[in-house]
């Protein structure tokens, strides 16, 4: 079974803090993704990566950056957290861009 893990299930940060969300997959997948999920808005793609050190903007990249130094690890960075970034963050990985396997999610609250 594919396993995608995320560093925290719940996180509380203050406005202006730098926030790191980590994601690790154990299936040697090429592609990794970061989404946020909000009530009424569904899943929205923030960034994705199709190879080490490669990244592509998704639909809502503003206020976020990513890092992929190793194939199995994909980090999402909030440079200066704001209250509108309070959300559920989901990481996924896949061999092709569809058939994505998701992690358990990190519920981030920015106060």
């Amino acid at each position, binding site marked *: 079974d594919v396993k995608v893990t995320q560093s925290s299930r719940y996180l509380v940060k203050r406005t202006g803090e730098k926030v790191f969300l980590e994601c690790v997959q154990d299936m040697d997948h090429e592609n990794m993704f970061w989404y946020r999920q909000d009530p009424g808005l569904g899943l929205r793609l923030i960034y994705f990566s199709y190879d080490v050190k490669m990244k592509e903007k*998704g639909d809502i990249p503003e206020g976020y950056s990513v890092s992929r130094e190793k194939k199995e690890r994909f980090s999402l960075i909030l440079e200066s957290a704001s209250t509108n970034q309070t959300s559920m963050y989901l990481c996924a990985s896949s061999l*092709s861009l*569809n058939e994505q*396997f998701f992690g358990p999610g990190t519920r981030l609250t920015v106060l």
Partner: protein
Amino acid sequence: QKEVEQDPGPLSVPEGAIVSLNCTYSNSAFQYFMWYRQYSRKGPELLMYTYSSGNKEDGRFTAQVDKSSKYISLFIRDSQPSDSATYLCAMTMNRDDKIIFGKGTRLHILP
């Protein structure tokens, strides 16, 4: 017109009933269709994956695609309380294209 439309529910049905979940879409180029199931406070998990039109069955679940009507369905037979979750449809034009997700339908199976 939104690319993918899905009734958010909630949909409440008694245990043992047949459940029908649906999505409509506007882009006739979509060829790959998926259903994800998401339990509360968990990440989505891939439930069904189909290519082009037709039916696919897996146990109590049947995925149906009608490309002429731009309409996809997921049927759950002999529904169980453990089927209570949010179901997201998803689709893409080809295997290496970005997935477009519906916003999900919340399903409650009443014991």
